[in-house]
């Protein structure tokens, strides 16, 4: 008896597709990745011990497939082949909007951040904040969003995340700083309630 059926496996396909699409930005590549993951999972189904959920196990496989995908041909996210690789060329620095010329805050950085800093009491609240963070992440340029996702959500080391996003490790630190500040400011704007 197999630990899961092919129907159960296929029921995860849409979620895996959404996951992959966020990270590679191209439907065809995402479809191929889903196929690779599901076939690999099916071939290796005897190794699934059921200690984690099937979806979690599949996402774990997908992470490796996505990394392989970027490593294979040193690909970068779709539509970005001609985009600049260095942070100097990325235009607007969000920190310029947050600080004045002396490096002092223009607005109160703590106002409205209470809900983020206090540990959410339950999954629903955590889910609300997650949704908001993801909405804010959509405002990031594609490559920056990928870099941030690989680093902060997928927990890759900086050099690996940088390689996947097609930026130099030196630029990655600067870009991650920009992403964090941009997201922090976005969360703050959308969660205004006194600290």
């Amino acid at each position, binding site marked *: 008896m197999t630990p899961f*059926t*092919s*129907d159960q496996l*296929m029921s*995860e*396909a*849409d*979620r*895996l597709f*959404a*996951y992959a699409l966020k990270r590679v930005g191209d439907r065809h590549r995402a*479809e191929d990745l*889903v*196929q690779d993951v*599901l*076939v690999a999972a*099916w071939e290796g189904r005897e190794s699934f011990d059921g200690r984690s*959920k099937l979806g979690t196990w*599949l*996402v774990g496989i997908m992470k490796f497939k996505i990394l392989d995908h970027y490593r294979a041909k040193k690909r970068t996210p779709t539509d970005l082949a001609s985009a600049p690789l260095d942070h100097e060329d990325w235009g607007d620095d969000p*920190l310029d909007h*947050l*600080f004045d010329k*002396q*490096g*002092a*805050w*223009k*607005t*109160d*950085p703590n106002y*409205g*951040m209470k*809900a*983020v*800093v206090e*540990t*959410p009491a339950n999954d629903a609240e*955590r*889910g609300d904040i*997650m949704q908001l*963070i993801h909405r804010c992440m959509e405002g990031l340029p594609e490559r920056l969003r990928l870099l941030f996702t690989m680093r902060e*959500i997928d*927990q890759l080391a*900086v050099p690996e995340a940088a390689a996947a996003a097609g930026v130099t490790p030196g630029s*990655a*630190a600067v870009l*991650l*700083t920009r992403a*964090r*500040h941009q*997201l*922090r400011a*976005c969360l*703050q*704007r*959308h*969660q*205004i*309630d006194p600290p």
Partner: protein
Amino acid sequence: MSCPAETPPPPPRGYRFVQTMMGPLMKRLGLSCREFAELASLRMDRPLTRSEAMRFRFHSLMCSVCRRLPGQFEAMRSVLRSCAVCDSQGITSSGEILDSAVKERILASLGSFGGTRREDE
């Protein structure tokens, strides 16, 4: 949690007064709030150098407005990582779904690797 987006108020008056008096000097010494904010992010990606760590600690001690910033970044990371499989659970799904033709193709390829739906049962 309220929407739509609003602009946060300016920092407290005391902060603005101190910045007016000390801002230029702090900037020259590499101790401005902007530098602190950059270090607060940088330390999440690599260990700070001794000099950076000293500036970070010093600023954290003297600036109550910046003090909570590292906690905000940590909290963001914590929420994101605590829900690392949110994508797989559909919590953050973009609503994009796989074409049925692609699903059929995948299902067919599973069959060629030793199984069909009926055989699995």
